[in-house]
C-alpha cells in the first residue's frame, strides 16, 4: 500500500467574508507519487482546495475550518512549515517572479531559509540543471520565453525538496504550443523525481496530453467524482458539471458511440476509434454543412502597416488585410507576435510609422483616439483596468456623459446596452458585487453605448470556465448578429474554431496566414510558426479514415453549437 501524502477527512471551510461554506465535507486521499488533476467550474471550490494544500487557507485567507487535513502525516501548523513540503506554481509566471534574474528567483526560498551562500550556489546549479536552465542563470526573468518562464518557476519551488508539487491553473495565459509544452515539462519532472503532482485546471483536454492517474471533479464545494480518466470520460459527469470534454470524445458521443472505459478515451492515441468508425462516418454524412456567410461591404482596411515602439526595432512588418461588415475574425499567434500592438494601431493608441488605415472609404490614420472610439471600440483583457466608477449605470454611461449627450439620450442608450448585455436587473448595483464575467460584460456595455461598428476584444474568455465561456461567446454572437463587426485576439484554439470563421495569424510581427480557422489549423507549417495547436478533431477524422477531415471539423462545430444553444 502506498503512503498517503494528502488526507482530507470530513473537511469543510468557510471564508470569513462569506455566508456559505466553500468546501463541504471533503474526503480525499492522495498517495505518494500520484499525479492528480482537479477540475471543476468557476466557484466550485477547486482553487480553495488548492489553497488548503499549500496553506494559504486558513493561514492567509482566514475562515472557519472543520474536519481534519493531514499533509505528509502532519496537521499543517503554519504556511512556512507547509512550504517545505508543498511547492506551489501559480498561474501567470510573470506575476510570481520575485528575483530579477533566473538564479535569484530560483534561490529565493533558500535565501529565506538563511542558507549559506556557497550552498545556495550549489543547489541553484543542481536544480537549474534539472529544468535545463543552467545556461540562463544570469538572464533577466522578463526576457525569457513562455516555456523558459515555466521552467524557472518550477525550479523555484523545487529547490526546497518539496514532496508535493501543486500547479494552480498552469495553462492560463499561455499560448497553445507553450501550454502543451508545460504539460510535457510537468510530466518529465514527475518521472525524473517521482514527486506527487496535483494540478488544478479546467482545460481538461490540454492536461490529458500527458497521462494522469486520477481526476477529481468538484462542483458546488463537493467532490462529485474521483476516478481514472478513462472511467470519467465514459461517464456523463463532465457534461453535468459543464466542464468541456475533449472534442474527440464529444464528437464520438454525438455520433452515437457508447463510451466505455475499455475504449481508453483518455488519450487520442490510445482511443479505440475502430469501434465507432462506422458511426462517425454515418454521422458525417447526415449532418448539414454550415452555410458560408454572404459577402457584404468592406468596413476596415489596413494597408502595409509598419510600426515599432523604439526606432530601429520594428514590431509590425508590412501588415495588410481588410475586414467586412458583420464578420467575426480572430487574430492569433504566439505571445509577443504583435497581436495586441495591431489592435492598438487600429484603435489609434499608437500611430503606425507607415501605412494607412481606412474605415469604409475614409482614411482614419490621422483621427484621434477619441474620434476613432465612436467607430471602433476596444475591450481590454482585464476588466479592472477599465472600470472607474462604483455603480454599473454610471460606469456604462461614462463615455456619453463626458461627450455631453442629453440626459434622455444617455438613459435610452445605457438601458439598451445593459439589456443586450443581460445586466438590466443589476443596473443599480455596485460593480464590486459582480463576478468577473459580469464585470467583463459591464466593460463591453460601456463600449457599446458609443455605438461603435467594430469591437475589438483582447482575450474575451481568458480564465473563464466552460459555462461562462459559452455565455460570453453566445452574447458576442448575438451582438454580431445585430450587425457589430467583432475582432478577437485570442490564444484559445477552440474559440477560434468555434466562433470565428476567419483567422489572421501573426508571427514575429508579420501576417503569415489569413484563412478560415479550420484551414489554418490543418496547415502544420502555420501551426508551428505561430505556436498554435492542431485540434484533436482533425486527428480523429484522419484516424476514422474520413476523406475530408476539415469538413468534419466544420460540421462538428456547427452541430455542437446547435446542441448547446438548444440544450442550455
Amino acid at each position: 500500500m502506498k503512503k498517503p501524502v494528502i488526507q482530507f477527512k470530513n473537511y469543510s471551510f468557510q471564508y470569513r467574508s462569506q455566508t456559505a461554506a466553500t468546501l463541504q465535507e471533503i474526503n480525499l486521499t492522495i498517495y505518494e507519487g500520484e499525479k492528480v488533476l482537479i477540475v471543476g467550474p468557476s466557484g466550485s471550490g477547486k482553487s480553495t482546495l488548492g489553497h488548503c494544500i499549500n496553506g494559504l487557507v486558513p493561514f492567509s485567507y482566514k475562515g472557519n475550518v472543520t474536519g481534519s487535513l493531514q499533509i505528509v502525516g502532519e496537521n499543517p501548523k503554519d504556511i512556512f512549515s507547509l512550504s517545505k513540503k508543498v511547492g506551489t506554481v501559480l498561474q501567470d509566471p510573470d506575476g510570481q517572479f520575485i528575483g530579477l534574474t533566473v538564479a535569484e528567483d530560483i534561490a529565493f526560498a533558500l535565501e529565506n531559509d538563511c542558507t549559506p551562500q556557497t550552498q545556495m550556489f550549489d543547489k541553484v546549479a543542481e536544480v537549474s540543471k534539472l529544468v535545463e536552465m543552467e545556461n540562463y542563470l544570469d538572464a533577466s526573468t522578463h526576457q525569457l520565453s513562455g516555456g523558459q518562464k515555466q521552467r524557472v518557476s518550477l525550479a523555484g519551488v523545487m529547490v526546497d525538496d518539496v514532496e508535493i508539487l501543486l500547479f494552480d491553473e498552469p495553462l492560463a495565459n499561455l499560448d497553445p504550443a507553450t501550454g502543451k509544452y508545460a504539460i510535457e515539462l510537468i510530466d518529465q519532472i514527475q518521472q525524473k523525481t517521482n514527486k506527487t503532482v496535483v494540478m488544478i485546471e479546467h482545460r481538461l483536454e490540454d492536461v490529458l496530453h500527458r497521462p494522469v492517474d486520477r481526476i477529481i471533479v468538484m462542483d458546488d464545494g463537493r467532490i462529485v467524482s474521483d476516478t481514472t480518466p478513462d472511467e470519467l470520460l465514459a461517464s456523463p459527469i463532465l457534461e453535468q458539471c459543464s466542464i468541456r470534454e475533449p472534442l474527440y470524445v464529444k464528437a464520438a458521443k454525438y455520433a452515437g458511440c457508447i463510451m466505455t472505459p475499455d475504449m481508453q478515451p483518455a488519450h487520442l492515441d490510445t482511443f479505440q476509434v475502430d469501434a465507432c468508425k462506422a458511426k462517425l462516418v454515418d454521422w458525417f454524412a447526415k449532418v448539414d454543412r454550415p452555410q458560408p456567410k454572404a459577402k457584404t461591404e468592406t468596413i476596415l482596411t489596413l494597408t502595409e502597416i509598419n510600426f515599432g515602439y523604439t526606432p530601429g526595432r520594428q514590431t509590425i512588418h508590412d501588415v495588410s488585410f481588410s475586414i467586412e461588415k458583420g464578420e467575426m475574425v480572430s487574430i492569433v499567434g504566439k505571445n509577443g507576435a504583435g497581436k495586441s500592438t495591431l489592435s492598438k494601431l487600429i484603435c489609434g493608441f499608437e500611430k503606425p510609422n507607415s501605412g494607412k488605415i481606412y474605415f469604409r472609404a475614409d482614411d482614419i490614420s490621422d483621427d484621434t483616439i477619441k474620434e476613432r472610439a465612436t467607430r471602433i471600440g476596444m475591450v481590454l483583457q482585464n476588466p479592472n483596468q477599465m472600470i472607474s466608477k462604483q455603480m454599473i449605470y454610471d460606469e456604462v454611461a461614462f463615455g456619453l456623459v463626458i461627450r455631453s449627450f442629453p440626459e434622455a439620450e444617455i438613459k435610452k442608450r445605457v438601458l439598451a446596452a445593459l439589456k443586450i448585455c443581460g445586466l438590466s436587473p443589476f443596473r443599480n448595483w455596485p460593480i464590486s458585487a459582480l463576478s468577473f464575467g459580469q464585470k467583463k460584460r459591464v466593460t463591453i456595455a460601456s463600449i457599446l453605448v458609443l455605438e461603435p461598428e467594430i469591437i475589438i476584444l483582447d482575450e474575451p474568455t481568458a480564465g473563464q470556465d466552460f459555462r461562462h465561456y459559452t455565455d460570453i461567446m453566445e452574447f458576442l454572437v448575438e451582438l454580431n448578429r445585430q450587425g457589430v463587426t467583432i475582432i478577437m485576439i485570442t490564444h484559445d484554439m477552440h474559440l477560434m474554431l468555434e466562433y470565428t470563421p476567419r483567422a489572421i495569424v501573426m508571427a514575429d510581427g508579420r501576417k503569415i496566414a489569413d484563412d478560415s480557422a479550420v484551414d489554418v489549423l490543418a496547415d502544420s507549417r502555420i501551426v508551428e510558426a505561430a505556436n498554435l495547436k492542431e485540434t484533436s478533431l482533425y486527428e480523429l477524422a484522419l484516424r476514422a479514415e474520413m476523406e475530408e477531415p476539415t469538413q468534419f471539423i466544420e460540421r462538428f462545430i456547427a452541430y455542437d453549437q446547435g446542441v448547446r444553444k438548444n440544450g442550455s
Partner: protein
Amino acid sequence: MAAEMLSYIERQSPVHRLTGVTKLICFIIWSSIAMLTYDTRILLCLFLFSIVIFMISKVKLKEVAFVLLFILVFLLMNNLAIYLFSPQEGVKIYGTNHVLFEMAGRYTVTMEQLFYQFNVTLKYFTVIPAALLFIVTTNPSEFAASLNRIGVSYRISYAVALALRYIPDIQRDFRTISLSQQARGIDMSRKEKLPKRIKNAASIIIPLILSSLDKIEMISNAMELRGFGKNKKRTWYRARPFQKIDIITIIIFVSILLVSLYITFHNGNRFYNPF
C-alpha cells in the same frame, strides 16, 4: 525609453566590482562632505576625483545624458532663483564688496555673489556623478542586500527593491489604462479646464490602483508561499563578501572625509575666502 533610464548598467570595471555596501557607504560619505563644506579647494578636488571615478567605471556619458541634462536644467533654475531672491548673499558671507557692474536696485553683480554661486554649482557637480554612478553600477538586488547589511530590516530592503522593479510595469499599465479611458472620451490635454482634468485623472488612477492591488496580492502570496518572512534574518544570493579593494576604498573615503572636515572647519568658517 523612459522606463529604462536610471537602471543598472552591466559592465566589467573596478567600480562594479565593489560590493553594494561599500558603494552605499562611500556615497553617503561623499554626499555628507559635499553638503557640509563650501570650501572651493575641497569641492574642486572632489569634483575632479569624481570625474576620474566616472571614467574608471566605463559608464558612457550618453547613457546617463538624459538624466544629467534634466539635473542641469534644475541647477540652472536653482541658480537663477538664488540670484533673484538673494543677490547679495555672497557679500554677506565674504564680508567684502567687489562690484563688477551696476544693475537696478539690489541686483548689482558682485564678484562675491558669483563666487558663492560658483560654489553652489560645484557642490552639485560633486554629488551628481557620484549619485548617478551609485545608481547605475549597483545591481538592484545587491542594493537590497546592502541596505540589509547596514542595518535596515530585510522586509523594508526588499520592499524598496521590489518597488524599484515594478516601476516600469506600473508605467506600462498606466499607459494602457489612460489610452483606453481616452478612447471613452476623457480629455487629459490642456484643452480641458483644470478641475475637469483632475476629475478625469481619477478615472485613470482608480483602475490603476485596482489592477495594481491584484498584482500585489499575487506577488505577496508568491513570496509567502516560498517562505518570505519566516525568519528574523535571511541570506542573499547576490551578497558579496568584502574584499581588499572594498576595505581600501572605504579607508580612502574616510580619510577624504576627515581631511576635508579638518580643512573646512580649521579656520572656523565653512567658506573659503579668496577676497
